[in-house]
């Protein structure tokens, strides 16, 4: 089992990896309130996909079973998991706490 702080670390690491690839004038601050998707987001759609793929893979590895952040369930949540770091963290913890 992994805890919320571990998942947050994974998300922030994925954002930092993305930041490392960006030119200086496009870098953003990565934290729990960083918007991921929507009008306030600084990530473009491909960058968001990269973050989701990294997070999905790293959480699955840490958890020892696969989780999906891109299935129909994720896309149909009333509150989008991809609004910001906190909503993504909340959604992942929901998946983590479910029986395998």
């Amino acid at each position: 089992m992994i805890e919320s702080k571990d998942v947050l670390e994974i998300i922030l690491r994925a954002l930092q990896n993305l930041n490392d690839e960006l030119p200086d004038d496009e870098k953003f601050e990565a934290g729990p309130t960083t918007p991921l998707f929507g009008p306030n987001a600084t990530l473009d759609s491909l960058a968001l996909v990269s973050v989701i793929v990294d997070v999905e893979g790293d959480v699955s590895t840490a958890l020892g079973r696969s989780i999906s952040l891109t299935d129909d369930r994720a896309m149909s949540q009333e509150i989008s998991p991809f609004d910001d770091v906190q909503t993504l963290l909340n959604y992942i913890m929901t998946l983590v706490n479910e029986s395998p």
Partner: protein
Amino acid sequence: MMSEDLYAGKVVLVTGSRRGVGKAIAEHFLKNGADKVIGFARGAGSIDHPNYHHFEVDVGDTESVIMSFAALKQVTDSIQIVVNNAAVLTSQYSMIMPPAAAQAMVNVNLLGPFLVSREAAKMMRKRKWGRIINIGSMAASLEPIGDSMYAACKAGLSTLANVMAKEFASMNVTCNTLGINAIESDMLAQLPRDKIDAIIAGLPVPRMSKEDDILNVIDFFAAERSSQITAQTVFLGGVN
């Protein structure tokens, strides 16, 4: 003469590696020094080599592909080159084509490359380098009678590569398609020989492909120097 370490340091995934063109491609990478060659096929493996790892996979089945990628991560944490070769062919007039056969072609020939490329790209992303090579067919261009679904799938394969080329470009992953023409294989044996001979006779280079014709283009697409070659379809024999 090629260097025997041409693919040193590379991990290669070949679908449909059990026989025919796929087997020849897998053996080519092994012969030229690939660190590992991962083979995906529905049946048991037919290559005996210490660097060859076989997985029994139905590439047209989403769960099968996802589970196989989870399993192959026990063998490697990276893939650099993917050759989407697995294909099935039923040649029949559209009005009497069994729907199940048409569905199987969509699943294996189109959905399969999508799924395999999708999962492999996630692994390529980590190293910011990759080559995805789809094995297409002259049927996509020549559109022969009886091959409605097969030709449509193979045409779709080029489109698949072209769109993925845009999506994966920032990861330094190229996506291309090799449209092969007839080569002696189990698949070819399913087709009327006179029909094949007539098609070949009409090509600018009127002979069937040989293995090396195919491997030559694969080496070109896979080369380090080909980083700017993406979203391209190369046909053999003068088909365009």
